[in-house]
């Protein structure tokens, strides 16, 4: 029974000078859920891409069910019974579920019989695994959780016995993630082998049987999940002790810095996303906004930071009003001391094609410090960038490097350094640690606490409940565009979870 479904022996892979995988050995037992954790860039995805035939290893051997196997393409992987659910779904958005499932696995040159066959096969899979989904639905009209289910069905339809899931919960709500885990357990009971790649240690603890840790391209340890702890895994991942809980003292809240009254914001389709929201943020406190993604937090942030027009309501900064219903100018708000770390650093926070030093002044590029007459003062900008790189431990420490070549954590540090170093009175932060590795998370959290302790007002929006709970002095929960409750940092996860799901909405509104 305890036979290996997959054995990797001495796998190495380099991309140019970068050694993504170094002499990796791994054994995955059949019928188990095996987790692979590691920071971004540790080589998890490369390893799984080798297993799925996307890349070929430079050296090493893959054995599937004990037999040495050469996997040269995705086709070979599918033929040996390996299926993969990618982090970014490999679905054609305007195709139906059925069309996506048969793509590449059509039974003959005409679609009619392929579709008929897939339809009955799909019914069987749905019955067997409880994976219900309308076969004729268009993918882009399905919620993300269901799209992921289609990906799983795709793999099962191709006869996958070994299922690799790459960061499957990144895009899911907590409820959807729970549902996914139920599905995975059921698949395990049916004898499938599951490989789960993630950087969320809680998920590893919750669902895996065994776990392997990768760091800088090497496999540093494999443990039975029962015999390890989150702390041990985090330490193995980063290579040093990591503080998972943030240490902070009491907040000393001062005067109101940012005040939001009856704010209403609509999205581009005209749907009300923020519905009559009011709150204050005081100097010296962190106010966290919790909620499942898509409940209006993004629109709230965008409205306050001047990116999106509000429909009605008022916002004051240091007692002076911000014209939100007109065109509030983010540049002007920055000058008035309201800094903004956007949720989406790739599209809003940074210009990825720019060099690091250019991004580190973006938004403040009209500041006299960076100008020499009408021209940019390149020397001053460079000196400033080097200073921030040193202070925020941004790696590699090269201000001339294109921003796209930094890891997610370091990109986020570039944005944070830019906004925090301007010494703003109010800092608005969206998803500060999304796609950021454990080591950098610790650093970013400490920085935010330091801001608070300097007497700044911090408004934090995050879908990571743990983050909200450990950083915030007050927690507001948003559901369907409204603030449905306020709690202190001592509120339990269950209590907040219910609020986030809108369960206690009535009671909270009273």
């Amino acid at each position, binding site marked *: 029974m305890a036979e290996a479904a997959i054995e990797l022996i001495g796998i190495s892979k380099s991309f140019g000078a970068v050694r993504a995988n170094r002499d990796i050995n791994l054994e995955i037992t059949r019928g188990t859920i095996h987790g692979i954790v590691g920071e971004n860039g540790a080589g998890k995805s490369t390893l799984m891409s080798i297993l799925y035939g996307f890349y070929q290893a430079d050296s090493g051997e893959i054995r599937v069910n004990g037999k040495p196997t050469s996997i040269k393409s995705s086709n070979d992987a599918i033929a040996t019974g390996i299926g993969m659910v990618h982090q*970014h779904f490999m*679905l054609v*958005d305007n*195709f139906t579920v059925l069309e996506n499932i048969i*793509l590449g696995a059509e039974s003959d*040159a005409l*679609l009619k019989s392929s579709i008929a066959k897939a339809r009955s096969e799909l019914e069987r899979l749905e019955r067997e695994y409880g994976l219900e989904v309308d076969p004729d639905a268009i993918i882009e009209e399905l919620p993300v959780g269901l799209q992921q289910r289609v990906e799983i069905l795709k793999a099962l339809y191709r006869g996958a016995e070994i299922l690799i899931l790459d960061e499957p919960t990144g895009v899911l709500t907590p409820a959807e993630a729970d549902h996914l885990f139920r599905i995975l357990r059921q698949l395990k009971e049916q004898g499938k082998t599951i490989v789960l790649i993630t950087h969320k240690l809680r998920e590893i603890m919750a669902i895996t049987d065994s776990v392997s840790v990768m760091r800088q391209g090497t496999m540093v340890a494999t443990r039975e999940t029962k015999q390890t702890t989150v702390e041990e895994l985090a330490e193995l991942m980063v290579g040093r002790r990591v503080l998972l809980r943030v240490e902070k003292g009491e907040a000393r809240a001062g005067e109101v810095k940012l005040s939001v009254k009856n704010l209403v914001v609509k999205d581009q389709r005209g749907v009300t996303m923020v519905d009559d929201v009011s709150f204050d943020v005081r100097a010296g406190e962190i106010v966290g906004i919790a909620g499942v993604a898509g409940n209006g937090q993004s629109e709230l942030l965008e409205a306050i930071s001047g990116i999106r027009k509000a429909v009605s309501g008022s916002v004051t900064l240091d007692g002076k009003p911000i014209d939100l219903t007109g065109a509030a100018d983010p540049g002007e708000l920055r000058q008035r001391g309201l800094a903004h770390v956007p949720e989406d650093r790739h599209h809003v926070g940074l210009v990825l094609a720019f060099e690091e030093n250019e991004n580190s002044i973006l938004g403040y590029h009209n500041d006299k410090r960076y100008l020499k007459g009408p021209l940019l003062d390149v020397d001053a900008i460079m000196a400033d960038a080097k200073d921030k790189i040193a202070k925020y431990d941004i790696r590699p420490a090269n201000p001339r490097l294109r921003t796209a070549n930094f890891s997610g954590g370091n990109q986020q540090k570039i944005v944070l350094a830019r906004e925090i170093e301007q010494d703003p009175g109010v800092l608005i932060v969206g998803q500060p640690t999304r796609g950021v590795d454990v080591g950098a998370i610790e650093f970013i959290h400490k920085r935010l606490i330091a801001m608070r302790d300097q007497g700044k007002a911090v408004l934090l929006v995050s879908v990571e409940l743990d983050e909200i709970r450990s950083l915030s002095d007050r927690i507001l929960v948003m559901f369907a565009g409204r603030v449905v409750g306020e709690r202190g940092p001592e509120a339990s996860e269950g209590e907040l979870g219910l609020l986030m799901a809108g369960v206690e909405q009535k009671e909270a509104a009273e």
Partner: protein
Amino acid sequence: MSFFDVIIQTLDSTIRLSVPLLLACLAGLYSERSGIFDIGLEGKMLAAAFAGAAAASVFHSAWIGLGIAILVSVSLALVHGFASITHRGNQIVSGLAINFVAAGSTIILGQAWFQQGGRTPALAPNERFEAITLPGADAIREVPIIGPIYSELISGHSLLVYVAFLAVPFTWWVLFRTRFGLRLRAVGENPAAVDTAGISVAWLRYRAVICTGVLTAIAGAYLSMVQSGGFVKDMTAGKGYIALAALIFAKWRPVNAMFACLLFGFLDALAIRLQGAPLPIIGKVPVQLMQALPYILTVILLAGFIGKAIPPRAGGVPYVKER
């Protein structure tokens, strides 16, 4: 001539004029559905028109002419493929280059080979695709209404006209009823999904551009071997671009494409018929304005009168495996 006859004649020339647009439009459809934008339709058509007429006059065979036209057009399509699929080059630049090469080389080669100022020799009847009389066309010619419709409008066209209109349902069938069509549509929307499903993105796209080459060849052959009896320089006169406009207008769907091309063809036919003829109320309209009509319509349609036309999502973007 009765009003009815005028209508029949106008519609008849509508069909003749829309054929090269329709073939080019369907050609573009295969390529663009696979995610390869092709503004080189014009150049491929022109090269095929020249190659077809030249070969037909040298070998005294319309079929050999067509064969050579296909050979030349597919070769150019493969050059576009090589640049934009294998080497991930800019598809607009590659397409433009093909247009320039075709415009220049057809004139130079034509002059070098035939010494007729860039023209090919006038084609004899057996070197052209002659009109076909459908069975029974002569018999019912005198029947009122149905007679002229059948014998004038439906019968009496060149083989290539029927090929063009049969290509519409055929393309629809290929696109929506076959495995190749499913994959073709998928690769234009999300090539990564096709790749991870174990299908070669490059090979699929190459097959698509080959289809494009064959259809532009027939369009070109129609121009030089059916519509006129030989090649004249720059005889495509922007039809490749109008076909692209029609493709957007048709939202990349074959049946819509047919109607879009018929509309453009109708405007062309109307422009010819109304040349010099005074219109009621407006009076005499300058010829140039009538000739400009299809182009004006193109601009108006593309400026937003067609609602939202969503191109294939991966269109114009070379596929690079994620690192």
